[in-house]
């Protein structure tokens, strides 16, 4: 079970300053000022941008006002179903104090490159699927399937309303090893490579063959190939120490979808 509650709190409270700009091709009349907003790293763009959408709507041509909203950073469409912190760390890895400037669009949704999970309902079912998959990896799906619909609702409501206690009252159960075990069966984790949105997923056990708890240096060895070596991991804007245990990380540094989202630095050999 997660003991370091302060760590959970700090991860939960992580925020990013975003400067939203209009797409100049969609504006009629005067160009609006940008819209600034602090958003939770753990949330998703469609969940935190109601106000942004409302603000820009009055500057947009009438035929686009009801359009499917999407965002880009320097021409890269932002995946609506990735946590905002994951997007930010992949595209804006050099931490600085200036807001992250992204553009909001009301038309020409890039259906080929962007999955259209753009409503709260679609995101909710995507989020629950992630929780289920994570639980399959951790507990063969036994914990989440023993939960009731109201528990699933509570997780979702805790996330969208940013209520730490509400979310963790249920998530705690997902973050405990099953019955008499000391660790999860496998660690739900997605590995990203800096320049790319596609991630790699594979079975990562928290324990070595001899039953020892694995740490990040073990994971580096596991991900390294004869041509490239994994040399560092980052998540939530933090460079991780190589002695950090995988089981502890999974319990404390996972996003609300119950996955660790790790950016991996590689060095060619």
């Amino acid at each position, binding site marked *: 079970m997660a003991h370091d509650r302060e760590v959970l709190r700090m991860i939960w409270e992580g925020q990013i300053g975003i400067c939203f700009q209009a797409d100049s091709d969609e504006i009629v009349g005067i160009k609006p000022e940008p819209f600034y907003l602090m958003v939770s790293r753990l949330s998703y763009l469609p969940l935190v941008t109601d106000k942004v959408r409302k603000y820009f709507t009055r500057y947009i041509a009438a035929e686009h006002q009801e359009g499917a909203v999407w965002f880009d950073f320097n021409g890269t469409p932002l995946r609506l179903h990735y946590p905002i912190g994951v997007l930010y760390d992949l595209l804006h890895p050099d931490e600085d104090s200036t807001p992250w400037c992204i553009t909001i669009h009301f038309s020409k949704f890039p259906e080929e490159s962007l999955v259209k999970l753009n409503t709260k309902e679609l995101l909710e079912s995507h989020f629950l699927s992630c929780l289920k998959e994570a639980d*399959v990896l951790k507990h063969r799906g036994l914990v989440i399937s023993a939960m009731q619909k109201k528990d699933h609702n509570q997780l979702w409501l805790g996330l969208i309303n940013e209520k730490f206690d509400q979310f963790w009252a249920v998530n705690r159960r997902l973050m405990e090893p099953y019955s008499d075990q000391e660790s999860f069966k496998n660690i739900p984790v997605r590995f990203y490579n800096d320049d790319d949105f596609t991630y790699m*997923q594979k079975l990562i056990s928290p324990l070595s063959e001899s039953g020892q708890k694995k740490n990040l240096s073990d994971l580096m060895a596991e991900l390294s190939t004869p041509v490239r070596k994994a040399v560092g991991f980052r998540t939530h804007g933090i460079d991780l120490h190589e002695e950090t245990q995988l089981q502890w990380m999974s319990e404390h540094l996972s996003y609300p979808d119950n996955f660790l989202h790790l950016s991996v630095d590689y060095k060619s050999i």
Partner: protein
Amino acid sequence: MTDTEETQSAANTTSITSTTPNDKDAAKICVLLNATGNVPIIKKRTWTVDPNKTVSWIQKFIHKYLKLDQNEQIFLYVNQTFAPAPDQIIKNLYDCHGTNGKLVLYYCKNQAWG
């Protein structure tokens, strides 16, 4: 399923088997497609798929194969448990959820396992 059968059944439809000649990097993945609920059955259940194909690519393939209407949707589930994201690649699913050398997928026209 042998290769011969595969070629025959794929002949009159879009082949799910990638034939890209320069695809040397990874072996293809064996996918078992199961119908569930009120959806037509695809007789040939075992297919080989390029590991980098996405879930939405498979959904489109099934949609086309069954000649469904534009407004009908295909939902896909892994091992009757969860619905993978449309941009998830088959390799990731196989590496984490494959059993006995196969990735078992269930398809239907209505949401089945939430």
